[in-house]
């Protein structure tokens, strides 16, 4: 049995009065690298542990392929889990750690050795096979538990923030490695993280979670460029939010908006939300233009400049307490503008997203 598709069908998990996972439904394709992304406490681990069988959901079903696995004990689910805390077996050598699941399955010694060797090589641990975990670095330990989870050829690979205990350099290095390995093996993977960069870089699809619910399920590109909710727009990447008032249509699928400091035309992505509006646009989608050049745009004063080397960040004050962040690049031979310069901010209609404002 190789990898399988996973279906999560309106799964709910309650702890007393509080609700950790709230009616989540997902269909994950065979071989897909699927990421659960959300801030701390949003229910990612809970959902993952329900799939692994360590927690029993309060409602809903989990299916592997067409088989409902709710009554299957965790040791019979054939999932490979990588824990945030590594959960390496400290008393076993690297080889014994990796062979653990194969031995539990009663494989023959020769076969175990062959498989363990394969994965030692894949995770580049061959020279460390006989070390004890305490003699390994964090990154090496993480590769051991990865090999340990993959060598059993699980139907589904489950990873709970596997990189969060590592330093930045190791994290950047390992995330590419994990993704390459997953592609090679082709195992369906559910990956949990609160690091959006990790999620965007590694995933085939991302589910953004919040308070136990799904906000949006989409490809990294769509999650970033077409956030479905205001939460996703603010959670993924950076966004400027400004109150907007609808001032009528502007051609098919376009609306006129009045914002602090001026007017915009925005391309509608779906239905126009009823009631009050908020317009969102990303710092890198804004062009700084001369104030009197005509055309659409918000007019404001340059209030602050942050020089970051390759990029430069400008804060433009539109008055009334509204600041807009603008990202520009630093080109040789172009001088930085002076604070106090007036600008008109130009944004293409397609770069503007409209949401109903968040009710606090």
């Amino acid at each position, binding site marked *: *049995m*190789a*990898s399988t598709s996973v279906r999560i069908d309106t799964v709910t998990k309650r702890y007393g009065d509080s609700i950790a996972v709230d009616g989540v439904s997902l269909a994950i394709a065979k071989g897909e690298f699927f990421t659960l992304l959300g801030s701390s406490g949003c229910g990612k681990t809970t959902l993952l542990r329900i799939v*692994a069988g*360590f927690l029993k959901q309060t409602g809903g079903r989990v299916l592997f392929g067409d088989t409902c696995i709710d009554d299957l*004990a*965790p*040791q*019979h*689910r*054939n*999932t*490979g*889990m990588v*824990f*945030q*805390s590594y*959960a*390496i*077996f*400290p*008393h076993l050598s690297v080889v014994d750690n990796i062979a*653990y*699941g*194969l031995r*539990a*399955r*009663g*494989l023959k010694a020769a076969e175990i050795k062959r*498989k363990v060797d*394969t994965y030692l090589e894949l995770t580049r641990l061959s020279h460390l096979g006989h070390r004890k975990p305490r003699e390994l670095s964090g990154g090496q330990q993480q590769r051991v*538990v990865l090999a*340990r*989870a993959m060598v*059993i*050829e699980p139907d589904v690979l489950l990873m709970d923030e596997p990189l969060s205990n590592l330093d930045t350099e190791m994290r950047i290095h390992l995330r590419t490695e994990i993704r390459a390995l997953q592609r090679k*093996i*082709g195992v369906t993977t559910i990956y949990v993280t609160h690091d959006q960069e990790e999620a965007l870089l590694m995933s085939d699809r991302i589910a953004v979670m919040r308070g136990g619910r799904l906000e949006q399920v989409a490809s990294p590109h769509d999650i970033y460029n077409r956030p479905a909710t205001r939460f996703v727009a603010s959670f993924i990447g950076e966004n400027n939010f400004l109150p907007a008032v609808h001032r009528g249509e502007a051609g098919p699928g376009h609306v006129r908006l009045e914002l602090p400091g001026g007017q915009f035309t925005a391309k509608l992505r779906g239905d126009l939300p009823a009631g009050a509006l908020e317009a969102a646009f990303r710092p890198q989608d804004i062009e700084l233009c001369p104030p009197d050049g005509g055309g659409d745009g918000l007019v404001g004063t340059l209030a602050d400049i942050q020089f970051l080397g390759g990029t430069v960040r400008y804060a433009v004050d539109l008055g009334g307490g509204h600041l807009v962040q603008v990202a520009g690049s630093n080109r040789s031979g172009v001088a930085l503008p002076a604070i106090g310069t007036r600008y008109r901010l130009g944004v293409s209609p397609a770069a503007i997203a409209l949401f109903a404002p968040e009710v606090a």
Partner: protein
Amino acid sequence: MSALTDTAGPPRRGGLARHLGFWPVVTAIVFVLIAGLLLLPVANIVGVSLSAGAKTGGVFENYVSFFSERFYYQTLLNSFWVSFWPMVFAVCLGVPAAYFVNRYEIWGRGFVRAAVVLTFVSPPFIGSYSWVVLFGRSGVLTQFFSSLGIPLPSIYGAPGIIFVFTLQFFPFVFLLVSSGLKSIDQSVEDAARNLGSSEFRTFRTAIAPLLVPSITTGALLVFIASFTDLGTPIILGERFRVLPVLIYGEFVNEFGGRPVLASALSVLLLLVTTAALLLQRWLSARFSHATAAIRPLQVQEQPLGKRIAATAFVFLLIGFALLPLANIVVSSFLKSNGPVLVASFTLDNYARIMDRLALPLWNTLFYTTVATLLCALVGTAVAYIIVRRPGPVSSLLDTAVMFSYAVPGIVLGVGLVVTYHEPPFALTGTAAILILAYFIRRLPFSVRSSVSMLQQISRDTEDASINLGAGPGRTFLRITVPLLATAILSGALLTWSNTIRELSATLILQSGTTATVAIEIFNEVVNGNFGVASALGTVLILLTFLPLVVLFTLLGKKEEALV
């Protein structure tokens, strides 16, 4: 999946555990063991104690007669008397001693700690008879002083018992207060001193209140140990009778004891110890401040005078506490003529115990080892259930295990005899009943040791094993047990050293062929063969102390682990 052939899913094995689940089956087994060895015997004692009057309609007949006959209720009062005073004295001596050892730069601190441990683990009845050798009617020191014309107070009766209990049991207070002091942060003292408080005032107002749980726990443990001890009052009591002696007398009386009365007395004893333990729990919870010291109280520099005075106090106390032990070791190498020792070196005593010791020594080692292994096995499983499978059954187990602390050895002995003297479970007089008694009495050591370690081990490691396809049983054996190895080992060492010197339950349960070294010593003492008793006592002290040496040196445990 091209390069790698498919692996079959994890195996599913058959068997009972597969159908019911591994842990439910283990829980049931453990529960039956504890119920059968602890709860049932206790219930039976209560039943028997009420049975005599059942015919006449007065189920409390035994209790009524107990409280109306002076001979009986005086015994209860006596028991309180010789438990209350050791409790008071142990606090008065143990608290300052612990404070000085932990706070002052006294000399020989390591020696003092070792001496306290040695006192603590040495069998109380050995200490008592050693005092008799020194201060008894024909005691070495009694005669020496009377030749100088100085009459010494009698070691017999209540004062002697109180004296011996105090010296024997003050380590409870010492060890608990020592660990209490280690959990107080230096900043507490610094703040008080900074506000202009003197050292004594600081202790009284800032430190002592934080020590209340340690002191009360220590005090009540002294009380319980004194209240339930059987050996010392037999040896020193003479006509001064306490409750355990009365129970023992009524139960094993060769001229027809009264097991019903013995049961009623056992119930009384159990009520007192249970009440004391509940009081201790309540006090600890009520006064606990749950502080974790970032920088524990430091050793302070003191003026030389204070340093000398503190050292003198501690060494005087330790000297008295060690005297009986030193006396035993020394007199085991002396020629003896009955109770009279002669000052010339000999190995006669050891030669004499050689042939006589063979069976009891073998018995002792065998029973202790089997009971220790059982404790380690069952105790680890119980700890797992308590920590990892919380729920009503688990807390019931927890309570039952803690209850076994409250059941005195003699009460357990009576209960087991009452429960298992008839077929199909006619176990009285067998080795099995001794082993089972030791097992259930010392189970809390293993449970406690594994519980505290298990609470520190992340559940993820075990979950990872389950996730990789190992069932709960395999996970327990391959992952949990190895991770708990040091805790299991230290629990086992404590069990061993506490079991090997067990006297009161053994006195009730042994049958001549199942006598242990402790019983043999006891018999020799009662017969006045002090030389032989000393040689046996030295062997027993060694057997008790050796595992602790391993515990402290190899496992790096602190003495506080003992209480």
